[in-house]
């Protein structure tokens, strides 16, 4: 309904022919009552924090390692959160039991990058991973109906995949390939900054075929996070690994018909972001994209159709972002606050505060 209204108003600006099927919606996140996030407490202990904004209820589950991103399993109360790079576990949370019900190890010689996504019926889970020996970036596939059994690895022909999302066609994965080589023995040291090959990839989730590989305008623009709109628009966030005094675009856009472009922000704003974006969220109800930039303590709202900047708000240590189910967004801060941004682009309003440090992403 919402989509039709938008189309009628001509706001999407796309030919109807190029639109994907409307029969399949992007699952879960828009309407989910509970959100999940990795979090630390003041003493540095690690948790998976759950929070229901409507009921203002919260609980948390202690985990042994710092986690990063997550995804909701469609048609279930499960959420999966992933260890932060170079962590080796994924944690399956049962929202009804309010407990971790399964922990899956990446296996000898592999580690995860911190993000994953389910297919539309919650059967297969796709997780970005590193095969440590040769630093091959992979999408590892797990069967959630068979106790998260590992099924297959799909190579990305590149290094350092990070966030991935399912496109509205239900078959294509959009994968942000960071391009940065790391090795667990070297902690978080970046080992190949001279010859990175980042990309925004489209992959067929069924057979792993790479359908498109879009390269950022500079080889040190590490493509890290992304979200997909209901019309198939992808907005991706970069982290620039080159000199801080250079100004490079930090946001990319892939239109539903496959046009790849980068979004230049005003110079002053680009400088304030300090080469870094964190979370991306695309509204399910309007052509709005939200980008968090924790180093710049900022939240940006963009028109996802053309990439123009609509608003830039101060928000201390802005981190995770998610749709709020009402046309707006939820944004977390590492300082403990959880904020709502209305669909009108107005400034963030704090809706809750917890004595924790919300980590990078909201699920």
């Amino acid at each position: 309904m919402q989509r039709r209204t938008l189309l009628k108003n001509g706001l999407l600006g796309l030919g109807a022919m190029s639109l994907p099927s409307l029969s399949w919606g992007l699952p879960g996140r828009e309407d989910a009552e509970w959100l999940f996030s990795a979090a630390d407490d003041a003493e540095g202990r690690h948790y998976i924090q759950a929070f229901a904004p409507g009921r203002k209820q919260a609980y948390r589950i202690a985990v042994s390692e710092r986690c990063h991103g997550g995804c909701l399993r469609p048609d279930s109360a499960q959420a999966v959160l992933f260890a932060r790079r170079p962590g080796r576990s994924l944690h399956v949370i049962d929202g009804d039991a309010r407990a971790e019900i399964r922990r899956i190890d990446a296996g000898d010689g592999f580690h995860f990058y911190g993000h994953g996504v389910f297919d539309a019926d919650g059967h297969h889970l796709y997780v970005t991973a590193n095969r440590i020996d040769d630093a091959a970036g992979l999408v590892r596939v797990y069967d959630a109906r068979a106790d998260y059994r590992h099924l297959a690895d799909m190579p990305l022909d590149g290094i350092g995949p990070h966030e991935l999302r399912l496109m509205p066609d239900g078959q294509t994965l959009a994968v942000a390939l960071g391009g940065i080589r790391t090795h667990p023995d070297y902690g978080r040291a970046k080992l190949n900054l001279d010859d990175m090959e980042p990309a925004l990839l489209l992959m067929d989730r069924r057979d792993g075929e790479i359908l498109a590989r879009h390269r950022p305008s500079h080889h040190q623009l590490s493509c890290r996070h992304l979200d997909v709109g209901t019309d198939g628009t992808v907005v991706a966030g970069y982290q620039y690994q080159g000199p801080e005094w250079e100004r490079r675009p930090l946001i990319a856009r892939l239109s539903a018909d496959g046009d790849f472009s980068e979004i230049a922000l005003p110079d002053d704003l680009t400088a304030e972001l300090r080469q870094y974006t964190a979370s991306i969220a695309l509204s399910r109800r309007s052509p709005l994209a939200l980008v968090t930039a924790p180093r710049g303590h900022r939240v940006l709202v963009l028109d996802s159709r053309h990439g123009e900047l609509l608003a830039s708000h101060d928000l201390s240590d802005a981190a995770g972002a998610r749709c709020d189910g009402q046309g707006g967004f939820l944004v977390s801060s590492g300082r403990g606050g959880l904020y709502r941004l209305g669909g009108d682009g107005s400034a963030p309003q704090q809706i809750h505060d917890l004595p924790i440090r919300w980590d990078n992403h909201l699920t």
Partner: protein
Amino acid sequence: MMTPRLFKQLGRLGLAALTLASASLLADDTSPQAREHWHQAIEQRYGALNDASERLEASAERFCNNASDAHRQRLTRDWMEAWQAWQAVRFVDFGPIEQNSRAWQMQFWPDRKNLVGRKMQSWLAREEAPTAEQIAEDSVASQGFPALEYLLFDDSMQGTDALAQPIACGLMSAITTHLADTAGALQRDWQRFGDHYRGTQSYTTATLHGALLALETLETKRLGEPMGLTGGSANGYLAEAWRSERSVRLIEASLRGLEDTFLPGLRTLLNARGKPELAAEFGAGLDRARQGAAEMAAGVAPALDDRDRFRALQGLYVQVGQLRHQLETIGRELGMVRGFNSSDGD
């Protein structure tokens, strides 16, 4: 629902928001002045690192030409001074040091898997010594002060003239050349970085944050973990410079760097806030801790089995913790946002 009119409103709202956004953290007039201080002081520090690295390179060459005891002593001294010069400016964790993982190149640490030792052993087993270019392309474990420390101090290198052998000497020379190249590039890039640093407000917070992180690392990683004060058991191999037992000399250099490189800019900020006493207290604390460290024995690991020395180290640990706490308080006073995600994202 989004209508064209609403989108127009959004656009206007956005402009207003953009205007507002410029008035944020530490936006008072003294902030550029502080950055001016810092930029100059850090430039001097990178200059000193470059000079010391060049002296070290020359010293390595001298030793390889004539492996006398005097040359060996001078080599060891030049290596230590260069490493201390790096320690003094290590709190700067933004700008050119982030290029090409330069901080890791200078000092790969912690090294839980003894990668430095393994790398050096593998180079030493070859038929030819590497060039500086080969070192530049190799792992960060081969590139910095700990790699040189292995060659100078590891048990396996203590045989007669082990370091004077052509492969070992060539390896050492290549590493010192690469180090000097890196330090030179760092100094040049810091100068180029000047306008951007001085003109970008968020670097005030970044500089404060760098100093705070340096104190935290000093407290928990450089002292707490090897001493077994952070939950795990004591483990001298987690200390920096354990092979040469000079961990405390490096800590002393870091404190000195904070004192003469970071403190002046901080004082400018606090004076403008009418809180000069906070800078004075912090400065006095730094001075006490540094002097205390200077009077202590040089190693962390040997102190683990020596009650008096351990007690002295504990005293330093407590002092550093107090400094960290003081700087946190100062940060709050200055409106610094302590970012969890801004400082350690992914």
